[in-house]
C-alpha cells in the first residue's frame, strides 16, 4: 500500500506467562514507519497481552521490544517516557468518567508532556473536530454513544503525537451500527501516515486498511503477509481453520 520506512516497533522473541499459562511463546514481528499491521487471532490468543506488553503495562518474561531501534523492555528502562511515545486504545474505551471529553484528551498533554492548558486545549479541540466530535467537548463520556466514546479514546491516544498507535479490538464493544464511524477514524489516521498495530476481528477492515496481516496462534505469529494473500489463500492449516470459523459465525 504505502511505502514502509524504517522499523518503528521491533518485537523479538517475546514471551509472557501468567502463572502456568504461557500466553506469548516467542512473538516476532516488525512494524515499520507509516505501516499498519492487523493482528488477528482467536479470543484469548494473546493479542491484548502483546499490545499491553509493548506499552509496558505488562512485564515480558523473555525477548525484547525495540522502539525506534532502542530497547524498551529492559528492566533498567523507565516505563513512563516510553509510554509517552506510544498510544494505546482499549477495547472498553477506559475513558475517565469524572472528566469532560476535552479534559480526557488533554490530561496526558498537560500532566505528562508539560503543555500549558491553553496549548493543550487548542490542540485537543482541533483533534476532537478532526474525529467529528465538535460540540461534545464539555460533555461527560457517559453522555456519548459507544462510537463517540471510542473516537474520544482515539483522540486521547493520538494527542501525545505517538510514534505508533496500538489499537486493542477497538470496535469489539460497539453496537454493529457504530463500528463504521470508529473504523473511519482509524482509516483517517492511516491516510495521515500513522504507524499502527491493530488487533482486530474486522477482517474486511483489516483487508482494506492494513499493509500486512499477522495471525497470532498458540502464542506465536504463525503466518503474516499481504492481507489479500493471508485472508484468501492462507498457507497454514491453523489460519485456514480460524478463517473458516469466522466465516461460519458470519464475521467475514
Amino acid at each position, binding site marked *: 500500500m504505502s511505502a514502509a520506512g524504517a522499523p518503528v516497533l521491533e518485537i523479538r522473541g517475546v514471551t509472557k506467562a501468567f502463572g502456568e499459562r504461557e500466553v506469548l511463546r516467542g512473538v516476532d514481528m516488525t512494524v515499520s514507519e507509516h505501516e499498519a499491521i492487523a493482528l488477528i487471532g482467536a479470543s484469548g490468543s494473546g493479542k491484548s497481552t502483546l499490545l*499491553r506488553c509493548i*506499552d509496558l*503495562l505488562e512485564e515480558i518474561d523473555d525477548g525484547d521490544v525495540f522502539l525506534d531501534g532502542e530497547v524498551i523492555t529492559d528492566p533498567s528502562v523507565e*516505563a*513512563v*517516557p516510553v*509510554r*509517552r511515545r*506510544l*498510544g*494505546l486504545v*482499549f477495547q*472498553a474505551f*477506559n*475513558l*475517565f*468518567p*469524572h472528566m469532560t471529553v476535552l479534559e480526557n484528551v488533554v*490530561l*496526558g498533554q498537560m*500532566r*505528562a*508532556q508539560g503543555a500549558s492548558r491553553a496549548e493543550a486545549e487548542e490542540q485537543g479541540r482541533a483533534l476532537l473536530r478532526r474525529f467529528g466530535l465538535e460540540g461534545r467537548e464539555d460533555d461527560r463520556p*457517559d453522555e456519548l454513544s459507544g462510537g463517540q466514546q471510542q473516537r474520544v479514546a482515539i483522540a*486521547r*491516544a493520538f*494527542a*501525545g503525537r505517538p510514534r505508533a498507535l496500538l489499537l486493542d479490538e477497538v470496535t469489539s464493544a460497539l453496537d454493529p451500527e457504530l463500528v463504521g464511524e470508529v473504523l473511519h477514524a482509524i482509516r483517517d489516521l492511516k491516510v495521515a501516515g500513522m504507524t499502527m498495530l491493530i488487533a482486530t476481528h474486522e477482517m474486511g477492515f483489516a483487508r482494506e486498511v492494513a499493509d500486512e496481516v499477522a495471525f497470532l496462534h498458540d502464542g506465536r505469529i504463525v503466518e503474516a503477509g499481504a492481507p489479500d494473500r493471508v485472508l484468501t489463500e492462507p498457507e497454514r492449516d491453523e489460519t485456514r481453520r480460524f478463517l473458516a470459523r469466522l466465516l461460519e459465525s458470519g464475521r467475514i
Partner: protein
Amino acid sequence: MTETVVISDRRLARLAAKRRRQRRGQAIAAVSSVIVIGGLAVWILTSPGWPSVRETFFSWSEFKNAFPEVLEGFWLDVKVFVLVEIAVLIFGLLVALLRTSAGPALFPIRLLATVYTDLFRGVPTLLLVYLIGFGIPALQLTGLPTEPVVLGGIALGLSYSAYVAEVYRAGIASVHRGQRDAALAVGLTEAQALRHVILPQAVRRVAPPLLNDFLALQKDAVLISILGPAEAFRNAQIIQGENFNYTPLIAAALLYLVITVPLARVVDRLGVQTGGVR
C-alpha cells in the same frame, strides 16, 4: 378515526384503574399508619407509669430550665466534631494511601498502617478516650497536650481515622483497573494516575459511607464528657443530677437530632445519586 377512539378508550380505562389502585393504596397506608402509631401512643400514654415518666423525661419546665446550658455545651461538641472530621478526612486518606502503596521500601510503613487500622478499629472508642485522656497526662511528658477536650478529640480522631481509612481503601479498590491502565498509557506516572484519575473517582464513590461514619462520630463526641469538658451531655447530666429529672438529656438528644437527621437525608440522596450513575 374510529381506531384511535378505541385505543384512547382502552387507555382511559387503564388510567382510571391505575388511579383507583393509587387511591386505594394511599387509603390503606393512611389507615394502617393511624392504627399502628395511634395504637402505640395509646398503649404508652395509658400505661400506669406514664404520668411519672412524662414528668421525669418530658417536663417542659425542666426543658426550659436546662436548654441554655445544654445548648452552650453543644457548641463545644460541634467544634470538636467539625475539627475531628476534618482531621479524620486527611489522616484517614493518608493511612489508606500508605496501605495501598507498593514498593518493598515502604513495607514497614504498610505494616504499621495495617496494624493501626486493625488495632484502632478493634478497640472500643470509649476505651481509647480513657487511655488517651487519662494515660497521656499521666506520662507527665512535656510538649504533649493535657487539655481534656484536645485529648478526647485525638482519641476520637484516631478511632474514626481507622474506619475512614478502610472506607477510602475500599473506594480506591473499586475503581476499575482499566482506569489506571489508561492513565499510565497517556504517560502519567503512578502518583499522577492516583491523584488525577483514581482518587477523584474513589472519593466520589465513598462519599455516602464517609458521611455515615461522620454521623456516628458526631454522636460519639459525647464520649469526651467522661474526661470532664462541659459539653452538652455533661451539662445535661449535671442538671439531671441536681433535679433528679432526665429532661435535660432529652434536650441534648434533640440538639443531636437537629444535626444528624439532615445529614442522614444527605447520605440517602447521595446514595441514590451514585446508585443512579452506575
